[in-house]
């Protein structure tokens, strides 16, 4: 009789046995460390005040002095990518989390309670989904003015609806399962059924949705930034750098390629981590791992 693994032990076994998940976890952790310690890691100061010192060396190709080269201001691209980690990761994680939380609340309320609650919430979802998501994000961000708070609001408001729909349909199928019926027959209340039966069974889908959401959020933020509605240029996100770098992509591809690669690596890391987490939290997978 083998001993059962706790989720923590299973998590460790999963990390040590699955190179992709391990890479994802290490990468995500490294990104968070970089985000926190950015000012100490970046070799050059970033911002308008640093321009004077580097004038004359614009669009310099990568070298030992400037690992990722310099942009058309003469700023060090490596330093800007490091500093951009902070704002990009922060906005990506927090805005994704906010829109997931709202989406789950709406989906569960709608799917579990039904009736007029369902009608009202789903019509509201329809309204949000009727707009192209980027257009809605721009609309909200533009009406609120630029700044980090308005980015959060814009990304959250335009992002929850898809999750809400998905969670509602999950809840609708789970609600009809006999084990939920059995919980009702045992006398369990709505809270117990939602938190003990329905949400744990939504978990694998939610994790995958969340990791996908992070990628979408980072890219939407990049689009917003490009339109001047995103993060202030004193602390440019990767998205801002990619879009401005595109102007000189023929002469100096490194200006756009490095922040673009950073976005790609970040999204990949979170996706790998998400896949591994989903397996670790599924009792059926614990024997296989």
């Amino acid at each position, binding site marked *: 009789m083998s001993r*059962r693994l706790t989720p923590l032990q299973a998590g460790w076994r999963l990390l040590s046995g699955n190179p992709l998940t391990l890479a994802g976890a290490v990468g995500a952790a490294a990104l968070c460390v970089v985000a926190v310690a950015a000012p100490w890691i970046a070799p050059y100061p970033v911002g308008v005040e640093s321009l004077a010192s580097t004038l004359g060396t614009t669009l310099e190709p990568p070298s030992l002095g400037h690992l990722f080269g310099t942009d058309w201001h003469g700023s060090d691209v490596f330093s800007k990518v490091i500093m951009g980690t902070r704002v990009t990761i922060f906005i990506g994680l927090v805005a994704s989390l906010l829109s997931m939380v709202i989406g789950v609340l709406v989906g569960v309320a709608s799917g579990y309670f039904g009736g007029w609650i369902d009608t009202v919430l789903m019509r509201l979802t329809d309204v949000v989904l009727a707009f192209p998501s980027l257009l809605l994000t721009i609309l909200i961000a533009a009406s609120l003015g630029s700044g980090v708070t308005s980015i959060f609001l814009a990304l959250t408001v335009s992002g929850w609806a898809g999750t809400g729909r998905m969670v509602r349909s999950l809840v609708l199928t789970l609600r009809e*399962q006999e*084990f939920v019926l059995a919980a009702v027959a045992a006398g369990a209340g709505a809270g117990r059924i939602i938190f003990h039966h329905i949400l744990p069974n939504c978990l694998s889908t939610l994790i995958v949705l969340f990791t996908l959401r992070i990628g979408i959020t980072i890219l939407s933020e990049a689009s917003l930034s490009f339109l001047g509605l995103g993060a202030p240029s004193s602390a440019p996100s990767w998205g801002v750098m990619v879009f401005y770098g595109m102007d000189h992509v023929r002469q100096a591809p490194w200006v756009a390629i490095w922040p673009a690669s950073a976005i790609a690596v970040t999204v990949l890391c979170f996706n790998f981590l998400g896949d591994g987490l989903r397996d670790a939290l599924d009792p*059926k997978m614990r024997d296989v791992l």
Partner: protein
Amino acid sequence: MSGVSGKSQGNILDVQDLKIHYPVHAGVFLRKVGEVKAVDGVSFSVKAGETLGLVGESGCGKTTVGKGIMRLINVTSGRVDFTTKAGKTVDLVPLDRGGMRPLRSEIQMIYQDPFSSLNPRWSVGDIISEPLDVHMPGLSAGERADKVAWLLEKVGLRGEQAHRYPHEFSGGQRQRVGIARALATAPRLVLADEPVSALDVSIQAQVINLMQDLQEEFGLSYIFIAHGLSVVEHISHRIAVMYLGNLVEIGPAREVYAEPIHPYTRALISAVPLPDPSLKRPDRQRLQGEVPSPLAKPSGCPFRTRCPQAIASCAEQTPPLVEVSPSRFVACLVVAGAGG
């Protein structure tokens, strides 16, 4: 129809004229265009320590009756009088969710599908102790684990299997887990909704024997819902036969089986396969046609459109259940002369 569900000592459940109708909406404004009469005036009783077999083909409303008694669905009208351990008789129909909760420890259910009835993310121990968590929140972790181990052993599993997950068990073992969950709060009445229909024949017998042993040990009453008579015959003391939302016959199992009176029961029993293929049934009956839609039930007797013995007056009058011999009730104008 006195006696079918009349108040008598020793009944733990009295169902009287239970009706469960569903409105059918259609069109842009969702006007009500009709009604599905899933259960249309069903009355029966269950004595303490007795097993009542409730049989009928798919869609006849037997599961709906079970869920109505459990108040898992809304009941249109009727009474469901349940007698508690304390000897109090309560009508379950007007109760809301909160009013029903304390009574749920005394009425439990075993479900049809051993796969979807256990939460795949919970260990078997947690599944079995869910009713305990709801009804006895004061239990310590140790007492809870002891109780779970004891229950697992009662249903023929091992106590140390409590921390395993449902997917590690076979269908029959999962159904035993479902039975252990139903017994956790020491209920008086257990509704078994086709508990063996998803299992292999050899496992069916084991589970039915287990249910009989548990009935003797704990003095349980069962309502055993099934779609075939062969399963029910072995475990039931009495059999109630349903057709299209109505009871057509109810009586002691052995008598109903040996000498069915209602034409539908006769057809149902002649459809039970015999173990020896060389034996020919002299009175083999085959029913013609399909079950009518419950949306458009025939007038009068619901069975008249397929009945080999139907007469003109069957269309005019819904036959009541009539006592044709002691404790045997049949709803048929022809064979029971009801309403004459």
